[in-house]
Structure formats: C-alpha cells, structure tokens
C-alpha cells in the first residue's frame, strides 16, 4: 500500500532532484545505521516525503555529506543527516512492520514470515519509544481488518481507518497546535487517497483472488468484464481521489513551508495527480518502480 507519494521526475529541476535524492538517501542510510542494513529494503518514497515535509516547516540542525553507498558504489551523492530524517526512518520501519504483518495474515507466505522475524526486534524497540503512536496505528489497522472482514460496502467508511492512520503519521509532536492540525488534515486526505488508489490499482488481483476490495463492494461488482467495471466507476472514484489531493494541497498552502517548497509542490500537484491519471486510465503504468 505504500510508495505512491512520489515526485514527477521530468518536472523537477536537476538541483531539486539532487535534493530529493539527498533526503531519500538520508532516510535510507538512517535506517541502515539505526536499525540494521538489511532493513533498508523496506524504504518507501512516503518516508522521503515525510522527511522533506517536516524539514521544510521545522528549523533543525542539518548536516549534508557527499557519500558513496552500497547500492550505488560507483557514484557519490548528497546525503542529509538530521533528527527528522531519523524520525522518518523510524516511522518507515513501523509502517513496514505493520504492512508485513498484514501480508502474513493475508497469505501466510514465507517471504512475509522472514520479513516479520527480521523486523520484529527493530519494531519492539520503536514501540517503546513511540508507544502512543504505535498503539493508535495498531488500533486503526484493527478497525480496518474488521471493516474488511465485514465486507464494508462504502468506500468512504473503508478508507477511514487508513486515513486516520496517516493523520497520525504526519503529526509531529514538537510542532505548535495549528501546524499539527494542518498536518493531520493533510495526512487524513493523503491516507484516503493512498487507500483508494491502491484499491483501484488492485482491482484485477482482488477479483482473481476473490479478496476484499472496497471498490468491488461499493459498486456491487457482479462478475462482468473488469475493464467495463473500471470504466463505469472511474469518474466517481476520480472525484474522491482528486478531492483528497485538493484538500491535501490546500492544507499544504497553509503551512509555512520554507525549504524545498518546489519539490513538495511537485509531489502534491503533479506527481500524485499523474499517478492518479495513470492508474485510473492504465496508461502505460509501469509496475514496481525502481529505486532512484
């Protein structure tokens, strides 16, 4: 479900792209340093976005270094070090762990089990550090699995727990109340968008495996052609998706974002919109994005 929040690379300036990558690499290295190298595999674009967003509104002491990395040993690139990067890497691990638990419950696959065992210790440590946040995230995921079990037939209701989860993810305690309120609304809408775009993206698979999908239940799928079904529901789903993005970007406008505003705007206004268009229209949607 993660990894949909990413920039539209062709619309970034080269210096902006370098900066984005510095954050992305920063989170990746922070995971390796603080939780173990192998866990760097769980890195998502969402964590890089979180780091960019919070760094843009908080004044934190930041170090920039030019380093090599295991994945790309030939070239040196910029890497950012600060406390927000560390926070984002923690959140990345918490979400990855919950995601894998979810997978394990779904299909009991061996890969999920390996991941689960690997992440368990790191997660336990983080759980004691962010106990309230972890508990809320757990509760939301429980709510979600209950809704899924009961075959919830309203897409708004089904998306609610995940939206509330992202609300918690974006909320950073050290900020003032107003900013936190804005971040929570932004998180809510981003979460809703992620949940629904993922549901639309998974339609074919879920039909094949006859698993739960909020859109199949909401629009009462009766076994006819998938493409036809998609065409029929597209407009209505698009309405909600775009509305979420609109609200998230309105919330963003109210934040006093200073650094990297252009990159964040690129993600919110172009990257996520083009993702929406691609998934809704299935226009040459390349699955499994590569790391940058």
């Amino acid at each position: 479900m993660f990894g949909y929040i990413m920039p539209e690379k062709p619309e970034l300036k080269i210096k902006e792209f370098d900066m984005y990558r510095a954050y992305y690499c920063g989170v990746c290295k922070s995971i390796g340093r603080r939780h173990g190298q192998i866990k760097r595999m769980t890195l998502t674009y969402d964590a890089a976005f979180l780091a960019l967003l919070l760094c843009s509104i908080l004044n934190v002491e930041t170090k920039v270094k030019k380093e090599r990395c295991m994945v790309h040993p030939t070239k040196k690139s910029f890497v950012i070090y600060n406390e927000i990067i560390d926070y984002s890497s923690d959140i990345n691990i918490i979400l990855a762990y919950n995601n894998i638990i979810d997978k394990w419950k779904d299909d009991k696959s061996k890969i999920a089990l390996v991941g689960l065992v690997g992440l368990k210790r790191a997660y336990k440590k983080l759980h004691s550090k962010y106990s309230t946040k972890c508990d809320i995230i757990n509760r939301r995921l429980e709510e979600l699995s209950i809704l899924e079990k009961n075959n919830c037939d309203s897409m708004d209701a089904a998306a609610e727990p995940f939206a509330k989860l992202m609300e918690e993810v974006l909320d950073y305690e050290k900020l003032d109340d107003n900013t936190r309120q804005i971040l929570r609304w932004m998180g809510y809408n981003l979460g809703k968008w992620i949940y629904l775009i993922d549901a639309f993206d998974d339609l074919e698979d879920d039909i094949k495996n006859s698993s739960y999908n909020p859109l199949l239940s909401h629009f009462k799928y009766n076994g006819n052609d998938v493409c036809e079904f998609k065409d029929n529901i597209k407009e209505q789903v698009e309405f909600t998706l775009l509305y979420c993005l609109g609200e998230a970007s309105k919330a963003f406008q109210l934040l006093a974002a200073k650094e990297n505003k252009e990159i964040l705007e690129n993600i919110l206004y172009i990257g996520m919109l083009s993702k929406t268009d691609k998934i809704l229209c299935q226009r040459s949607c390349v699955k499994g994005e590569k790391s940058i």
Partner: protein
Amino acid sequence: MKNPYEVLGIKEGASEEEIKRAYRELVKKYHPDQYQDNPLSKLAEEKLREVNEAYEYLTGKGNGAKATSGWNGRNASYSPNQSTSSYGSGGSDSFAQVRMYINNGNILQAESLLETISIKNAEWFYLRGLIFMKKGWYNEASMNIKQAVNMDPTNFEYRNTLNRMNSSNNMYRGNASYRGYNSSPSFCDMCTFLWCSDTMCECCGGDLISCC
C-alpha cells in the same frame, strides 16, 4: 507582528509592483471561497489577515486600508454565518441548530442531532452532505448533496455547493497544468472549462459567453 516581507514571501526592498503581485497571489490562495468547506477555514482566515496586515504595513496605511476593506467586504459576504442566516431561516429549529454546530466545527454533535430528525427532506440531505464534507467523506458528501439538489432543484444554496465541489477538482487540475503538467487533449478540456465557467456565471446571475 511577523516580518511583512516574509509573510508575503518576497525579498526585503522589493518594488511596489512585486509587493502588489505577491499580495494578489496570496489573497487568491487564502480566499475564504477556497476554504469554505474545509475544516481549516479558521486558519486560512488568520493567514489572510496576516497577509492583509503585511501588505498594509508595506504600502502605507491609506493604500492598504482600501485594499483590505475591499477584501474584508468580500470576506463578510462569504462568511458561513451570514449564509446560514439568509438561507436557513426556512428550516425548523433543529436544522438551524445543526447548521450552527457545523459552522462551529462541532461535527460529531451535528451528526448525532441530524440523525434524530425524522423529516428527511432536501435540507436534511444537504446538511448530511455538509457534515460528510467536513469529515472528509467526499463520495457520501456529493451523493447527499446531489440528492438534495434533485429533491429541490430550485434551491440556490444546494446547487451552489454542488458546483463548488466540482470546481474544486477543476481548480486542483488547473494548478497542475499551470505548473507544466498536461494530461491529454487540452482543447477538449478548454471547451469544458469554458462551458463550466459559463454555467457557473449564469448560476450567479452573470454571463460569460453571451450567445449561449
């Protein structure tokens, strides 16, 4: 007071033209119209006030006051309270109460009160739509408001809200294309956009394309 240059997002010593341009952009951005159905509307109002103050400070009282009062005048006409008093008078006391809760951001209370009302008329569906809107349940919101419009097609308020919801998405898309994103056939989009604007103008009593 915050540094007015910072508030307007310009360099210190910017020319009058630059100040004006930045001011106009920001007023458009934080205009109450944009945040009418948004739970952050109070914060947007505050932001607009800051922008007004900064502009006033930089351009000198006289000039600024004129601009401010102009915008304040518009603010007033868009404030949620006023629209309530002008439209809500026809409804029963409970509906008025629900509206009050919605305006104060007390969504839970608005919701539970609305559920107790047994008359399911157009206004009931409209208010239910507004509540869903504030909760972020956009699909339910648009369904309920559409229902209200169908039940009472002559009601200007219901229709207006529905139009606003639709134009919000166009606005978001517009913002992306302004930044260089183009999806596909732009000519077709342009026609639709013109047609939409024309319809919206006509809704408000004006006209954009006089021949149709």
